């Protein structure tokens, strides 16, 4: 496929739309903006894969393919290579997607070269709570849809909302908004749309991929319950294109649910009509932000929009819209079935329940663990993760993806809560934990953070549009910055349009803080 100028205007015309409606979005999304060949390779350059080999996988893959990443096609136009930020193999990276085939492991370049067989080890999964909530299907074998069958037609939306309200469940995608309050804010109109946000863009987290691939029915059941609670007749399931297996699994689960009568008209003899459509993303981190996600679903550029209006008032095509993260929805069947109190007793007051945490490849026992909120991070790192593999020393620990933050070894006693992490300038985010070894150069890690920022800033607001680029230039120069950098970080955090630009300076500052003397002069 060539660059968007050659096809996007014409495609728009075929739908009776102005050329601009094609070109604008097509140049925005990485899947569309960068020409790709018959063989289309995506290489992950996100934190865990970076931390695995200090970023050396990228030149290695470029070498074996004979093409530079993000730079068009190779000489005969048959192969393209694009960097992506996270394929969800953080526990075993570095990772590539060769078409839809994952190639994962230290020998990723050899796999891509065809010298060894492509590998994609399954996600190690474990419940560390003793009474799993979101992993109920995956580790405890509990079938999905049972709650739905019991509820639909027998209970009221208010009843569902009140149980979820009593549970204290908050959004697990990073923003942490109370779920029942969001549902109530939509106002109960039948035009309401509920969107399951499977655009798990946070590098370091693969919990949503796990749920969508291994227990898609539970995610869908959660979405159905959310739709019911909101009075919505329509659910949408957005799955990022970097997760081709999750996309296939979700589509199949929707087909199955329709066949089993969980979706459709007058579900299970009730007066509830509900259908769910699965939509693929197109390659953008910011497009996981709810307003950007809605812009993308409307066919536009996946840029954040100012709120208000909040999506619950005016979302997809102006309709009241609720956006819930996949992990959030996966908790809903358990809560509805066991009651809000049972969930609220888990975790800590104010931050109730359980959370999936994802440990990166540098850990001795990487994988996805369900834990109760409030457990010490050190416990996760040492007891669950077994510390770093081969006895390596921890440099810093990234928590919650690029918008989360970094902890030093001595900070690890912090409890895994939003409030606790905030004390270190970090955030829970989607609770990916990426271990960065002591041997990595701190400036390389800083540059890595800014590379992510520059690659994924949507450009909708100036602080982030300019700041993400200038931060990268500064980090690349290696020269400790002056006052204007400090002012720029301040403008980014105070004035950016969405959490992406607002959080980045915090993440950068927390990294500098965690490295202490090793990044002196970069405080900003």
């Amino acid at each position: 496929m060539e660059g968007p100028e050659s096809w996007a205007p014409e495609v728009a015309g075929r739908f009776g739309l102005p050329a601009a409606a094609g070109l604008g979005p097509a140049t925005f999304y990485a899947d569309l903006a960068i020409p790709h060949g018959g063989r289309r390779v995506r290489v992950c350059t996100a934190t865990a894969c970076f931390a695995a080999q200090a970023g050396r996988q990228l030149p290695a893959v470029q070498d074996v393919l004979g093409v530079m990443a993000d730079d068009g096609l190779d000489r005969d136009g048959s192969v393209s290579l694009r960097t992506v930020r996270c394929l969800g193999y953080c526990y075993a990276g570095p990772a590539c997607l060769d078409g839809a085939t994952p190639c994962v492991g230290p020998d990723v370049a050899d796999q891509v070269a065809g010298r060894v067989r492509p590998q994609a080890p399954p996600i190690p999964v474990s419940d560390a709570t003793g009474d799993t909530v979101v992993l109920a299907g995956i580790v405890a074998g509990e079938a999905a849809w049972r709650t739905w069958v019991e509820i639909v037609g027998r209970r009221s939306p208010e009843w569902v909302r009140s149980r979820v309200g009593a549970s204290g469940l908050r959004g697990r995608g990073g923003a942490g908004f109370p779920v029942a309050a969001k549902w109530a804010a939509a106002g109960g109109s039948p035009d309401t749309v509920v969107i399951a946000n499977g655009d798990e863009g946070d590098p370091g987290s693969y919990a949503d991929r796990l749920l969508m691939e291994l227990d898609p029915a539970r995610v869908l059941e959660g979405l159905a319950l959310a739709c019911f609670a909101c009075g919505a007749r329509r659910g949408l399931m957005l799955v990022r294109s970097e997760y081709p297996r999750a996309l296939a699994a979700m589509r199949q689960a929707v087909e199955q649910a329709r066949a089993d009568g969980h979706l459709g008209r007058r579900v299970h003899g009730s007066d509830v009509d509900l259908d769910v459509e699965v939509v693929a993303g197109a390659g953008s981190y910011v497009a996981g932000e709810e307003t950007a996600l809605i812009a993308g679903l409307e066919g536009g550029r996946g840029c954040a929009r100012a709120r208000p209006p909040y999506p619950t008032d005016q979302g997809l095509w102006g309709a009241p819209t609720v956006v819930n993260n996949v992990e959030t929805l996966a908790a809903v069947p358990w809560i509805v079935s066991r009651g809000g109190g049972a969930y609220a007793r888990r975790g800590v007051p104010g931050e109730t329940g359980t959370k999936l945490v994802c440990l990166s490849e540098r850990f001795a026992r990487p994988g996805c663990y369900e834990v109760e909120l409030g457990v010490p991070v050190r416990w996760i790192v040492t007891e669950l993760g077994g510390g770093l593999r081969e006895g390596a020393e921890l440099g810093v620990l990234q928590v919650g993806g690029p918008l989360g933050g970094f902890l030093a070894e001595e900070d690890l006693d912090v409890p895994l809560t939003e409030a606790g992490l905030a004390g270190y300038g970090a955030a829970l985010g989607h609770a990916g934990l990426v271990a960065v070894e002591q041997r990595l150069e701190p400036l390389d890690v800083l540059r890595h953070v800014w590379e992510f920022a520059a690659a994924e800033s949507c450009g909708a607001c100036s602080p982030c549009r300019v700041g993400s680029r200038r931060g990268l230039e500064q980090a690349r120069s290696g020269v400790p910055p002056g006052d204007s950098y400090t002012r720029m970080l301040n403008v980014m955090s105070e004035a950016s349009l969405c959490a992406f630009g607002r959080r980045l300076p915090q993440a950068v500052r927390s990294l500098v803080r965690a490295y202490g003397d090793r990044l002196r002069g970069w405080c900003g």
Partner: protein
Amino acid sequence: MRVTVEGAVVDLPEEASVLLALRAAGVDLPTLCHDERLTPVGSCRACLVRLDGRVVAACVTPAVDGAQVSVEEEDLRRLRHDAVEVIVSALPPRALEGDGELARVCRDLGIGPEAAQGGAGRGVDHSHPFVHLDRDLCIACGRCVRMCAEVQGTFALTLVGRGSETVVAPGTGGPWADSDCVACGGCVDSCPTGALTEPGLPIGTHLATFTRTRTTCGYCGVGCALDVLTREGEVAAVRPAADGPVNRGHACVKGRFAHGFLRSPERITQPLLRRRSGLEPVSWDEALAHIARGLRAAVTEAGPDAVAAITSARATNEENYLIQKFMRVVIGTNNVDNCSRLCHSPSAAGLTAAFGLSGGTDAFEDVERADCLLVVGANPIEAHPVVGARLLQRVLHGTRLVVIDPRAVGLAGYADVHLRPRPGTNVALFNGLAHVLLTHGLVDEEFLRQRASGLPEATAVLAGYPPDRVASITGVPAEDLVAAARLYGMAERPAIVYGLGVTEHLHGTDGVRTLANLAILRGAVGAGHGFGVNPLRGQNNVQGASDMGALPDLLPGYGRITDRVARGRAERVWGTRLPDHDGLRIPRMFAAARSGALRVLWIIGEDVCATDPDTNRVVEALESCPLVISQELFLSETARHADVVLPAASWLEKDGTFVNFDRRFQRVRPALAPPGQARTDFAIVHAVAAAYGAGLGCPTPAEALAECGRVAPVFAGISHQRLDREGAIPWPCPDPEHPGEARLYLDGFATPDGLARLAARPYLPPGESPDDDYPLILITGRRWAHYNSGNMTRRSGTIELAPSDHIDLHPADAARHAVHDGDLVLVESRHGQATLPARITEEVAPGQLFCTFHFPSSRANALTSEHADTVTSCPEYKVTAVRLRGAQG
């Protein structure tokens, strides 16, 4: 809602933003991504204030009742400074030159060029004649994109790329010149940084060094207020006035950019007199003496009715007033007419018959409030772009739309129902719509009882137009007809907007009247619910030229020449007896010339050889007339056939007023002096009168309008002084205290009995119908980049946007005639032939062709016929039977 800004309490409407609160409190802060006309997006993040303790971007934050807004705290000042500094840091130093918005903001904040360290080398796009892009100056604020979408409605632009790479681009991806851009200039006007500029005002320009002249556009009849920027006797740029009463800061390619003709080397700058060798330059004295001699000879030998004048709908009110006064008072004839004869004379006749006054019934801002628009025989997107854009925005925001037009152009693509009648079948179609209103009970019984007359007669005629029969006459499917009637009939505030597709027919006046029937049946005129019937005027002052009495049967203010009272009033003001019989209409003037009865034909600014139908016969008339005077900017076809050519001033060189399509008087002010010896039409008429030994009084345009107010009570309250103060005043305006009546007939119709008059008019076939010899129907009209005969637009940069003429035909007809896109085709009618390149498009229906007369060399009007409206003599431009003679070349 009440908000406290820095201690000052301001009252705000609901849903106001914090920025509005700041503005209300007189606080100014940088708003680089903000334009009041556009949806705020909060991109630049410079308008930072504290709202109840939170730092917010004021433009996208709703104000809340009781909120406290702080602006002046030191940390906020610093944050706003730093936010702009961050933006500037990515730009090259030239971004801070001149006095564009960003440069001004930086000066205010003390940000100097040293802060501008960027310049990514992203390049420029100078492919377009009017819009230049410098990508390095783009701050991705999207104002241009939103202007193009939310004001212009063309959707030609988009932001492309993401993150720091984000930049504006035309949506088609290639050069700007090849894009969907229609050069309204909105993006240039809104751009805060100079990323988008026009050639006359490059980056670094200091606007303060220009002279700024507020005037009214001289192209179409929308009446856009423009600010003309001049320096050293040259127009640098024309910018739409943000406070323009009609255009509100918007304009189109013509008003905004098509001014290059002013300095065309082809401008006539001295009088020309026909000698044996042809037209030769002479002095004004010589030319005027020649004219005076000719006038005297004609009047002496053949009487005053041997003299006729065609005035100009492009000229000012005052000029038109003066010319008709000269003809009536000095010569003693009513032989004065203007080109509304060729466009909207059926509107004048039809609207007067139906409602009492010769003009649209409602103000444009009311039309915009309609919940259903019926747009008939008009393509405002191209011909009245500012109106078209505004109507489109209403439709995009949910107003229902019915379009009646044989062609699928402009608004038709957005219509709920698009009816495509066969050309010439309007009356049947309108009667059919009225039939459905009646049979479906969608009429306003109360209104019909109290405020209308003629219902029984109309009902009897309308009974003969059931949908099936109408379908067979018009080709419009019966169900579409019913759907359209129901949309109009069930709307709470419907409005009718129409154009020359209604009037330029053999039964154009019947068309206007049967269209007006719909508003009367529905009670949607003069009643506060529904916005009447509104003609879109093709020329800047076609309303005014008629208002001023440049008509053979009507005095200024539409008093009939045959009406003793009206005539008496004029006679008292002018101090002389007036001829009491109607003068000649334009087509009759030509006939009189051909027959030898007409001795002098004075043509002011009309290229009748290009714009009037049946060109060959027009030329014959000019050649038969002993003295033809042409007042012109250029040596037009008409001027070439004249005996005396007088160099005239253009609209940018004149003082006076125009009346736009919704009856608003607005001022016209000279931005430049006329070139060489050219004079305003006002001065020329005075000079001719003087040479003839007569005085006309009213030495200035202001005095002319004042005198007109004494002749015509409907204009009595309007004066230059008042317009200078108030901007625009609609007529009727009977006294200086009266605000003018934007919305007519709320207290009764202006008909003799005060009732709206329903018309009972049967459908009659057009003058020409397709037959075996001439199987196709030609429609003529206008395209977006050009205007009328093209005399001005072809000599401005617009020619680069649309360099050539073409004739549109449907793919099926193209296949039948083996014509390919771009082939030159010979088109023949019973009256003449024309050769044009073909453009194959489904915009036209099978069996129909479309072309313009923007390029007189194509001779489109050699094809059109002398058939004309039976009431007003308006030519049947919209229906000519033609045939194609295969492909050539």
